[in-house]
C-alpha cells in the first residue's frame, strides 16, 4: 500500500525532500535558507510563465523525461524486479539526452555528452549493487528484500559505501555534478528548457530523489528503522559532500567510478560469494 502512495505522490514527496535539502544546505552554510515549500513556489511560478521553446521535439523530450522517470519509479516500487527498474532508468536518460542534444546550443550538447559519462559511471555500479542485494537476499524481488531478516548493510558495507559515492553522480551533486555544472555550463541538459517545459525537468529531478533513496532504504532489509536511518544519514552525507567539495573533471569522475568504486563493490561481492 505504502509503495502505491509513494509512487503516486512521488513528485510531491520529492518536492518536500528537495525543499528540506535546500534548507539543510543553507543551514550548513550558516544561512537561513528558503522556506520548506520553496520548490512548490518555484513550481507554481514556472506554471505562470509564458511558454517558449526551441522546437517541439526538445520540449517534448523534457516531458518524456519526466514521464519516464516516474515510470521507472513505478517499476521499482510496484514491480518486483530491481534489475528491470535499473534498466528502466535508462529510458529517462535517453529522453533527456536526445532532448538536450537536439538543440544547437553548445552548453546543452556538452551537458548531454557529460550526462552519458554519468551513465557509464553509475550504471554498472547499480547493476552490481542489485546483484549484491540478490546475493544477500536470494531474490531480485523488492518485497523479498524488504522482508529480509538480516542486515544487508552489514553484509555488503563496501557496496553501500560505493553506492553512497554514486548518489552525487545520479542526483547531480558536487563533486560529481559534471553534467549540470551550474557555474560552468549553466545546467547542461536543462539549459534550454523554460517555463512549463522546464517544470517537467525540475519535477523529474525530485522523482529521481525518491528513486535513489529507495535503493538506500533497501539496505536496511526488514528493519525499517535502519532503512530510514540510512536514508537520513545518506541524505546528510550527500549534502555535506555537496557543500564542502569542488566540482571534478568528468574524466576524474569516470576514473574514480571505474578504478575505485566498481572494484570496491566487486570485491565485496566476491568475498560475500566465497563466504556463502
Amino acid at each position: 500500500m505504502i509503495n502505491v502512495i509513494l509512487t503516486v505522490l512521488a513528485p510531491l514527496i520529492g518536492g518536500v525532500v528537495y525543499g528540506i535539502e535546500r534548507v539543510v544546505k543553507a543551514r550548513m552554510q550558516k544561512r537561513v535558507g528558503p522556506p520548506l515549500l520553496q520548490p512548490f513556489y518555484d513550481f507554481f511560478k514556472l506554471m505562470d510563465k509564458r511558454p517558449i521553446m526551441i522546437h517541439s521535439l526538445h520540449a517534448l523530450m523534457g516531458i518524456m523525461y519526466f514521464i519516464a522517470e516516474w515510470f521507472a519509479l513505478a517499476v521499482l516500487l510496484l514491480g518486483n524486479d530491481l534489475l528491470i527498474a535499473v534498466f528502466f532508468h535508462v529510458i529517462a536518460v535517453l529522453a533527456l539526452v536526445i532532448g538536450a542534444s537536439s538543440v544547437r546550443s553548445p552548453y546543452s550538447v556538452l551537458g548531454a555528452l557529460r550526462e552519458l559519462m554519468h551513465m557509464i559511471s553509475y550504471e554498472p555500479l547499480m547493476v552490481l549493487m542489485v546483484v549484491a542485494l540478490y546475493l544477500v537476499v536470494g531474490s531480485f524481488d523488492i518485497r523479498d528484500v524488504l522482508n529480509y531478516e538480516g542486515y544487508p548493510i552489514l553484509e555488503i558495507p563496501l557496496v553501500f559505501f560505493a553506492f553512497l559515492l554514486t548518489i552525487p553522480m545520479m542526483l547531480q551533486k558536487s563533486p560529481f555534478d559534471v553534467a549540470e555544472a551550474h557555474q560552468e555550463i549553466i545546467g547542461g541538459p536543462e539549459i534550454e528548457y523554460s517555463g512549463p517545459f522546464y517544470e517537467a525537468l525540475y519535477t523529474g529531478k525530485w522523482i529521481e530523489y525518491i528513486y535513489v533513496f529507495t535503493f538506500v532504504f533497501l539496505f536496511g532489509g526488514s528493519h525499517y528503522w535502519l532503512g530510514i536511518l540510512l536514508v537520513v544519514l545518506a541524505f546528510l552525507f550527500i549534502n555535506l559532500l555537496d557543500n564542502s567539495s569542488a566540482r571534478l573533471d568528468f574524466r576524474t569522475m569516470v576514473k574514480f567510478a571505474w578504478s575505485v568504486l566498481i572494484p570496491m563493490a566487486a570485491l565485496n561481492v566476491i568475498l560475500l560469494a566465497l563466504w556463502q
Partner: protein
Amino acid sequence: MGFFSKFRKKSPWILHYNTGGCNGCDIEILSALAPRYDIERFGMLNRGNPKQADILLVTGPVTKNCKDVLRRLYLEMAEPKVVVAMGACAHGGGIFRNFYHVENGVNNIIPVDVWIPGCAPRVEALIDGMVEAVEIWEKKSKEKEFLKDHENVIKTLGVEDDG
C-alpha cells in the same frame, strides 16, 4: 491573474549580466548571495540562464559589444519579466558617459523597470530594489513584450540555421 500568480513573488529567479562595468556592483551582488544577507531566503536564485530567469539584473554602462548580447538575453527571457538596472553606469553611463564605446545606460537598449542608484549600491539598496522589482513583476501579464523595432532586432540577432 490566475491561481498561480499569487506565488510569483515567492520565487524570483535572477539573471545577472555585467555589460562592461567595473565589477563593483557584481561584488555587491555576490555578497547578497552570501550568508550575511542571504537573498535565497526570499526564494531568489541566481540562475545565470535567461530561459529560466524572471529578473534581468544589469550592471555596467552597456558597451557597444554588449549591446546585441543584452538585447538577445532580454528576448530569450520568458514573460513576465522585469529589468533592473543597478549602479550609476547602468543609469546613464556613469563615469563612462559619452565615451566612444558605450551606449550610455541600459534604457537605450531595453526597457528598464527598476533603477537602483549608487556607485556601487549597498546590498540593502539592492535588496530594496529587488523587492520593488518583484512588486512590479507581480502585476505584469504573460503577454509577449516587444522591443522597439522588434522584427528588425530579431532578424539581426537571429542565428542562421546550417544547411
